């Protein structure tokens, strides 16, 4: 995939999205009499060109239908990309991407797996001179964003990373990786790809100074909007999750301003500048239940109404996790699931309503192997053939493995 092709694909989807479902007029089928010209066509034409053109247009419409009927092929029933995204398996995406960090892999390969079977369908090696570091997914279950740390000549990783787009072709079982025409970025902590695959969000955290930078890039044009802030030494920021439209959620923990901490929402159409000023505190960390002390990853439901996260650190025990759902509008706690079940957990994906999630969780405090599963109705159902020891360095997880749905 060349840059022109990628730019073109992205542009098509952005422009197509201008045409919203709400703007589509209702279907008006003609009466049952055969041979009568379609009424809608006549009306639309009348609206623009005046009544005197109606007979001509009606005739043209009949001709068009006749011509159309003679040239149709047995064209494929393959879906529109947006519709492909709705082809879910048990309500979750059909494919996911995993960058394993096992001893043999060392994050030099990314694999696309089938959610229903766990089978590896395609793989790609990290591009020359870099090593996979982070992954994110669009909503079509086959477009992924990859961040690769640039390597020195001697093969050591640096703090600089390059961004790539990976596109899985289920027909040919191929994973094509294309470099994005974006600058190198330092200290990447978290990345996100917009649901339509046209926009990239990158969160950088400078651990030495505690400064944070959020950049939002247009893939097609390379234009960037930047917000900055300070979380201080020991502060944390990440867990980027893209909601509907321009909504971006992230977890924010500043050592300097405790009142600002929690899950924040940013409208990426907002003016660049101060991250804390431009974003809204949707769920405050000060009101966490039962002495929980932190929030990990966050996902926004497809309708933007709810935020799913993992609460951790109950009563000073860092290895305690519980899933929770909050209202994005009011910050109210809506539900909690599976307390004291998993030492560590993360939410990876949410459906449109937030009722079905994909999450990872470890069952052992010692061997930190993540089990992927579907979380719905308060139950965690492991996916077939979740990542196993071969996929990761157990000591390193979750730092040397990334999974994107």
């Amino acid at each position, binding site marked *: 995939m*060349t840059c022109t*092709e990628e730019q*073109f*694909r992205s*542009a*098509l989807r*952005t*422009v*197509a*999205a*201008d*045409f919203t*479902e709400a703007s*589509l*007029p209702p*279907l*008006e*089928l*003609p*009466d*049952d009499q*055969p*041979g009568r010209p*379609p*009424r*809608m*066509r006549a009306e*639309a*034409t009348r609206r*623009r060109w005046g009544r005197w053109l109606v007979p001509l247009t009606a005739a*043209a*419409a009949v001709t*068009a*239908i006749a011509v*159309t*009927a*003679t*040239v*149709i*092929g*047995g*064209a*494929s*029933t*393959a*879906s*529109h*990309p*947006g519709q492909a995204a709705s082809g879910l398996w048990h309500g979750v995406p059909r494919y996911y991407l995993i960058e394993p960090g096992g001893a043999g892999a060392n994050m030099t390969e990314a694999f696309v797996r089938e959610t229903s079977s766990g089978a590896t369908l395609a793989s790609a090696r990290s591009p020359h001179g870099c090593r996979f570091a982070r992954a994110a997914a669009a909503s079509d279950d086959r477009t992924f964003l990859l961040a690769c740390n640039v390597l020195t000549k001697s093969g050591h990783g640096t703090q600089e990373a390059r961004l790539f787009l990976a596109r899985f072709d289920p027909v040919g079982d191929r994973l094509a990786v294309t470099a994005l025409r974006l600058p190198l970025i330092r200290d990447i902590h978290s990345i996100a790809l917009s649901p339509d695959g*046209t*926009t990239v969000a990158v969160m950088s955290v400078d651990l030495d100074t505690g400064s944070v930078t959020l950049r939002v890039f*247009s893939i*097609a*044009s390379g*234009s960037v*909007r930047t917000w900055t802030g300070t979380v201080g030494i020991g502060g944390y920021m990440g867990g980027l999750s893209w909601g509907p*439209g*321009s909504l971006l959620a992230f977890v924010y923990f500043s050592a300097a301003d405790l009142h600002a901490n929690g899950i924040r929402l940013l409208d*990426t*159409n907002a003016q660049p500048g101060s991250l804390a000023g431009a974003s809204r505190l949707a769920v405050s960390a000060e009101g966490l239940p039962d002495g929980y002390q932190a929030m990990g990853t966050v996902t926004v439901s497809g309708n933007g109404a709810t935020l799913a996260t993992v609460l951790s650190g109950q009563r000073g025990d860092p290895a305690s996790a519980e899933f929770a759902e909050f209202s994005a509008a009011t910050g109210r706690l809506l539900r909690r699931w599976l307390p004291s079940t998993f030492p560590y957990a993360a939410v990876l994906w949410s459906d449109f309503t937030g009722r079905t999630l994909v999450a990872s969780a470890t069952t052992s405090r010692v061997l930190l192997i993540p089990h992927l599963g579907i979380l719905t109705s308060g139950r965690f159902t492991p996916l077939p053939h979740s990542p196993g020891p071969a996929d990761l360095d157990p000591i390193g997880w979750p730092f040397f493995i990334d999974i994107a749905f």
Partner: protein
Amino acid sequence: MRPPAAAAAAAFGSRDDESAATPDARAAVAALYREHAIGLARLAYVTSGSRSLAEDVVQEAFCGLYRRWNQLADTDKALGYLRSSVLNGCRSAWRRAARRPRMLHLPPEASAEAAALGAEEQREVVAAMQRLPGRQREALVLRFYLDLTDGEIAEAMGISAGTVRSTISRGIASLGIVLKETS
């Protein structure tokens, strides 16, 4: 590669019965409209650059399907028929437009979301595509918007898979040149 007429016959069977409209047909076409109309409208929109034309050709395509529903031999082919109808509708509109001064364009009527993040540049990319010959334009949209395979594009356009590949290759090269000219 089947000739278009044969492909049409395969889709609709050989019956000459024109009295298609039944309550079942109405419900079936309405269901298809709910599922596919937005995707087809977007296809027409990016292909033609005109919102009103996109609405018209999609309505026309569904009306055409409804009128011939009882002749449809394989209802699974309905989406293929609709897609071809939409492409034909856009093609006809372009032929008509070619006789007039340039009137098809992408108006700057973006949503708030599109107003940001360089959406204008993306419009320019799509506008550049609309300066390409019709066949290249259609092949590019079918490949890069609908993600169809060579074979699927060949069937939708009534050309061979080899021609699809060469058309897309030329289209991308031309698009690169047009983009350079406009930048």
